[in-house]
């Protein structure tokens, strides 16, 4: 394969210049110009007469795009994996006091209502929070 020389390009340049010189300019086409300018004028008038509320759909669409982008940008943060929660192995807290036995209830009943209610309250507090309204309610 032969190595191209600048003369090779020059011959193509000459051919293109000859062809460009062959392109003739037709006479001015008044009808074409009139029709073109009629369309340009209509375009200019439409543009100047466009009320501002025509921008509303564009602005709404832009706002929607911004909101969507923000949502997408924030999405990974809100759904990022947090520290894994500790697995609850038992419902009762490990430090809770053991509940009273049947014998303890019988003994408390022998001691009177106050002792029995106190025992019941203590056991209930291990299952319900101290703020539960149950503890504030008056007995019938």
């Amino acid at each position, binding site marked *: 394969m032969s190595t191209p020389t600048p003369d090779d*390009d020059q*011959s193509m340049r000459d051919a*293109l210049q000859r062809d460009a010189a062959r392109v003739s*300019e*037709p006479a001015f*086409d008044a009808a074409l110009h009139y029709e*073109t300018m009629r369309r340009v004028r209509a375009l*200019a008038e439409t543009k100047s007469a466009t009320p501002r509320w025509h921008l509303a759909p564009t602005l709404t669409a832009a706002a929607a795009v911004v909101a969507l982008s923000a949502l997408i940008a924030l999405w990974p943060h809100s759904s990022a994996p947090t520290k894994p929660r500790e697995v609850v192995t038992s419902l009762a807290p490990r430090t809770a006091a053991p509940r009273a036995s049947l014998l303890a209830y019988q003994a408390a009943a022998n001691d009177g209502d106050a002792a029995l209610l106190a025992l019941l309250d203590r056991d209930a507090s291990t299952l319900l929070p101290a703020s539960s309204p149950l503890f504030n309610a008056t007995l019938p």
Partner: protein
Amino acid sequence: MSSSPVDHQADLLALARAGDLAAFSQLMEELQPRLLGQALAFCSDSQRAQDLVQETMIAAWKSLPRFDGSCRVFTWLYVILLRQHQRALGWFSRRLPLATLEQQAAAQRFEPATSGGPEEGGVAEAELLRAMLTALPARHREVVRLRFYADASETEIAAVLGIPPGTVKSRLHSALTKLRRMKEKVNRLRGAAH
């Protein structure tokens, strides 16, 4: 006061950019014949060429605010014309299969310049050259047309296309090399056909 036609056109352009329709009309009136001639050169159909020129001028009016005056008005209009033409043709404007060109050459459609009179040979050569131009990739074709048909300088082409001057040079060189190779191939086919 403006002296050269280019300055005069730049003045009209400045007025048109300010919304002066009469100035725009005068500018288009002055440039229409040259633009139409170029459109006819690559359309060959006068109705299509007229449509192309009209669409070009309307597109020019729409994009007037974006024109920064870094090149001549005609060069800027010529780029719009090329892009409108490319858009109108769609996919087919990107690359005419070289095979078509080769088939045409093989069918001796492009007779050598020596077979007829000088005028006939010149027309056939021009037809071949334009077919080869169509076969170039769009970015190469654009640079060649701007350089040779719109008579734009490499600096001007760089400004209007928004590419570095070095890229213009390399595209031009690639385009000329491709054209030369195509011509060599067509000449070989012609030789084989005779």
